[in-house]
Every structure is written in C-alpha cells, then in structure tokens.
C-alpha cells in the first residue's frame, strides 16, 4: 500500500514538473533518468490501481499546476509541459479504460472556416487530453458542415471552436445554428482573441478565457 501511495505521489510530482518519461528534464534541466508520468502510470496499474483512481490523482496535480499559473509562479510553457506529461500518461491508461468498460468523453475541436490560427486551439486540445477527454481534433479552416457531421457521427457531447479574427468569429454562430437545424445536442465552448463572453452568449455558446477554463467547463464546472 505504501508503495502505491509513493507511486501516486511521484505521478503528481512529475505532472507538476512536466516530465513525460525518464528522458525529460524538469524546470532546471535536472531529473533526467528518473521515471516520468508514462512509466509511473504503468507501475501504478501493475500495482493494482484502477484507471479512474489514477485519473483522479492526475487531476489533483493539474489543479496544483492551475493554481501556480494563476499565482504567476508558472507560465504557459510549464502548463503545457504538464499537460503533455498527463497526455502521455493517458495514452498508457486508454487501453485499460476500454477493457474495464470505462470510456472517455468525446470532445470535437476545430478552428473555424477561414481561420488558420491554431496555437490556442492546440493548447486547449492538449489540456483536454490531459483532463481525460477523447479529443477529436479536426485542425484548422474547418467548414461548419464538417464539424456538425463529425459531432453527429461521433455522438460527442462537447464541441470546442476557436477563432482569432473578428471576420471568422462569425462562423462560430453558423456552426451552432447548423447543429440546431440538424438536431445535434452538444455543449459548444468558444474561445480565441476575437471572441468575448457577450458574443458567446449571443450565439448560444459558452466562452472560455483559457485552457484551464475550457477543461473546467467541459467537466461540467
């Protein structure tokens, strides 16, 4: 039991340090050779821990990362390294989740038609993977029809749309409208430089100011 507890602690420690595996460095370039999240998740499973318990443990560590970001101690690269580490751990967990009949919620994400900007969208996608979602990333410049079709086929309950420009932002409303016409019932999260809470409300979507908020909203917070 003590070994399991230690492994859990190590997982959390390495999520915070943003170390995917033993090849990764920590903040100051140290820790190379020590086990990372990927290997530690494997150990935890072998030790008999359930995937759900591991996910909970990871989520707790990501909360710490979020708090440190809010306080100014962590920067975006730190958060992304942590999210990458979690994502690496989730890959190890995925087959075990499937075999135990547990599944991850699907999240369809895209940058809308006419817009090629994807830094923000990619960060959100990475965070969602780290948050335990099955992310279907459609890329950039994606027509409304493709997004709606995918959401329907995948039976996803969550959609994330990104736009940097005020001109392309209008496409978000089109996606929501098309979903309504086709009877697709999913929660739509929007974000990006041009988007505001007022605009989101106007089109019937939810505005998320950053990747942390997107994960929170996706989890129903």
């Amino acid at each position, binding site marked *: 039991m003590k070994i399991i507890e230690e492994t859990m602690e190590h997982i959390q420690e390495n999520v915070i340090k943003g170390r995917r595996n033993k090849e990764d460095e920590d903040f100051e370039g140290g820790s190379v050779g020590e086990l990372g999240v990927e290997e530690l998740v494997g150990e935890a499973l072998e030790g008999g821990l359930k995937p759900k318990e591991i996910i909970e443990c990871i989520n707790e560590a990501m909360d710490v990362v979020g708090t440190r970001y809010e306080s100014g101690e962590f*920067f975006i690269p730190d958060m992304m390294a942590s999210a990458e580490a979690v994502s690496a751990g989730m890959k190890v967990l995925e087959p075990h989740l499937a075999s135990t009949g547990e599944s991850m919620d699907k999240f369809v994400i895209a940058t809308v038609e006419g817009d090629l900007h994807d830094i923000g969208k990619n*960060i959100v996608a990475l965070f969602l993977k780290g948050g335990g979602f099955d992310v279907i990333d459609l890329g950039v410049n994606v027509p409304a029809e493709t997004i709606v079709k995918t959401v329907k086929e995948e039976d996803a309950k969550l959609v994330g749309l990104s736009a940097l420009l005020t001109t392309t932002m209008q496409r978000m409303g089109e996606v929501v409208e098309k979903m309504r016409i086709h009877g697709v019932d999913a929660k739509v999260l929007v974000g990006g430089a041009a988007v505001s809470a007022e605009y989101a409300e106007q089109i019937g979507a939810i505005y998320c100011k950053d990747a942390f908020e997107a994960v929170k909203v996706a989890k129903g917070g």
Partner: protein
Amino acid sequence: MREGVLVKPYERLEREQLERIHNASLSILRDPGIVSYNREATDIFKENGAEVSSHGSYWRISIPEELVEESVKHAPSVVKLGAREKENSLILDGKEPRVRFGTGSEANVILDMDVEDFVSEKTGIRSSFPVFKRRRGTVQDLCQAAHLCEHLQNVDFFIRTVNIQDEDITENNKDVNKFYASLSNTKKHVMAGLTNVEKLDDVIRMAEIISGGRGSNEPIISFITCVTKSPLQLVDDTTQNLIEIAKRGYPVSISASPQGGSTAPLQEAGMLAQLNAEILTGMTLAQLVRKHTPVLYGSVPLRVRMDNLDNMYGAPETNQYNIGGVQMARFYKIPCYSTAGIADSKFPGIEASVNKQLSHLFIALSGAQYIHYAFGLLEGSNTFSPEQAILDDVHIGIIKSLLREQKIEAEIGQGVKEIREVMSTSHKMFTRSTRKYLRADEFIPFYPFGGDGNETLLKARMRKEELLSAPVEEIPADMKDVIFQEFDVLDRIK
C-alpha cells in the same frame, strides 16, 4: 564579482578621428591653456614644465603636449572597486567594453508619489491616479534610495542619488553622513563627491572600518570630482579634492560636464576636443600628484536647450557627445564613467522612460564600463523618483539582455534538436525547451509593469514597498560602535 555585459561596441568615430580629437585637445591645452584657481595644482604643473602666468585671482597654465601624454601613460587601465559584499565588487578594464549601470547625481528634489481616487464627471467611474509632491532631499531619503538600490538587480554600483539638505547637516558632518547613509544601506560599491576635503580622511577611515581594513587596494568607496568648470577652468576646491584623493591612492572619477551650445561648442568635434582636454587636465594632475592613481574618464557632456539654456539630456547631440567620450576613454585604455538615463521630463512614466531608454541603449552599446545617472533621475538630474528607478531597473535589464553576447556555436545543435522534437508533436509549440530558460535570470518572462492607464506607476509603487520591506544586512554592531564613537553620524540614521 559583478561581471557586467561584454558588448561588441558601436564605434561612431574612426580611429583616425579619435587621434585628431586627441591632438586638438593637446593643442587647446597648450594654447589657450587652462585657467587655474588652485595654487597647489598650478605649482605642480609649473614644477613639471608647464608655462604659468599670474593674473591676480587666477593663473593661466599652458600645458606641454608631452607632459600630458607622458602622465596619462601612468593611469592604470584596470581599476578595482570593492564592496561590502565581495560579490558586488567591480573590475573595470579600460581595454574591455564591459558595461555596468549605476545611480548618480546628487538630486536636490525627491518626488513623492501617492495614489488618490478620482471620479469621472462624465461617467461617474472611480479610478486611481498617481499624485506627486516635490520636496527637498534628506539623509533618510538617501538611506531609502540606497536600500532600494541594494535590491534592484541591475544597479551595479551606488552613487549618492540625493543631496542631503537637512537643517542639521553642515559642511562638517555632510561627508560622513552621506557615506554612512549609503554604506549602511547597500552592500554594493559606493561612490560620492566630497563636500569638505578636510573630512576625506574621516570618510576613508570609516570605509576601512566597515570593510575590515581592505583599504585602497580593494576600496569599498571611491570619489568623484569635477575639477573643471567649463570651459577649461580649474576650480579651487574640487581641484584640491582631486589632489588629496590622489595622494591617498583612492580611485577617483575625473568628471567634466561641458554644455554644448553654452559652455562648449555645440558641434561634436569641438565639444569632444574640449571635453577631452578638461578630463586630460585632471588625469595629468592626478598622475603628477601620485603615479598610477586609479582614475575613471568622467565623461558627462550634454547639450543645452536653446530657449533657456537648461540641460537637455534628451537631445540627440547629448548621446553623440557621450559616445565620443566613451571612445576617447577607450583610446587611452582608461575605464569610462559615462552618462545615460536622465529624463528631461519632471514626472515618472512613459515620456521619461522613452527619453532614458534612448541613451541607455546607445551608451551601453558604445561599451562604457561604468554608466552613471541611470536610475530614477528626472528633470535633468534635479529630481530623484524611486518609482522611476524601479522602472529603470527593468528597462536596463532589457538593455542588458539585448546586448548580451551571442552563443551561436553553443546553441545551434540544441536549436536543431528542438525543432526536430517539436515538429513531431501535435501542438508544434516550443514550450518544453523554452521552459528551461524561463528560470534563467537573463530572460524576463513578460513586462512586469504593463497594464491599463495608470497601472504601470501603481505597480512600480507596490514593488517599491515590497523592496523596502526586504531587509539589508546591517553593518556589524562592533563596527557601528567604533564609527559612532569616532564620527558625527546623525542619531536618526544609526
């Protein structure tokens, strides 16, 4: 040791042009020569072959070229400045363009900043705004300025920022209190001018007590003396200061501050010939008093405003003159005490910072070893603003980062590796590699005083409060006891 930033210097003037300025300065020193109001200096020049004629209240001295050239050869290229904390010591090498920034001036006015709320008549919205009050500087202000500068990362040395004008400060106790206020609040190198040359030995003794007897080989204090009143007149008291400091072997900056358009030619060549002649006069005298006296080439030229003849530090010519000064110092292989960062604006903030950043950049780029005036000075050099000093610290950090040495050979392999790694990720962002550098001092992750409206100054004020609440290691009690017994240190700064 504070290493400074080694730069690849910007050379505005060619070697041949520096030689022409050198020759022009020598020619000026012979004819018309200099006017001297100091008897001992006059005698020293005369004994060493200068022609002297008496004119009642002053002497005119014609200095031979070879006397100047021979004397300047004895000035050391390397000047070592110690500090209470050994890690803060500086090795200034006149042959090496390694840049450091410090404070300066002896500002008469302290600008206090307060924050008040105002309500818009139009919208009814309440907002916070900075309000300012000007007042005369005191010894406690000097303590506070030294304390603040102790915690400002980019202040490499401390020159007294405030002229202490308390009612109980007299000509007899000003030097001791000025140096004690500085030394007891910062562990960096301390430099100042002398008010009363008779107190020089007191000040040196006090510094030797505090440094545990390190003396003039690793002096924790050094001096500034402006021996000439432009154009080309040796002032009696400051010249005497130089003679006495040189006799004791302490480092001294021989500063000259000709004003282009009033007390010096406006055009660059004439200004530089005069500036250089004035500094060479002091350097020659210092070496004649005592060979190998450590001197700094104190270049403080500036242009004046044409409407009222006030100093105009923001003028482009001021920067041109100063770059020339740095190059002349390098020509002689003497460390340069140069000038940057004074704003003409009376208030801290955007206008002042733009004004300052122009000279910070150019003078640092020219490779001056010891850049004074760089923190908190406004309204020429008449006002010191702690909030502006906080902003200057960040801005100078930006300049230091900008000018740091490139590491292409060391970094190229890593760069290619990073690109390969990132191209295999879904997000294609250079986060993992960036992260490592975030915690290195040479990068600022973002501009810390950004914000809407007045937030910059409000944030600077908050930062000032934080830094002033962080303690400074005190001078040990036994040393203090000796100092208080021997010298007239005011009770309120003990």
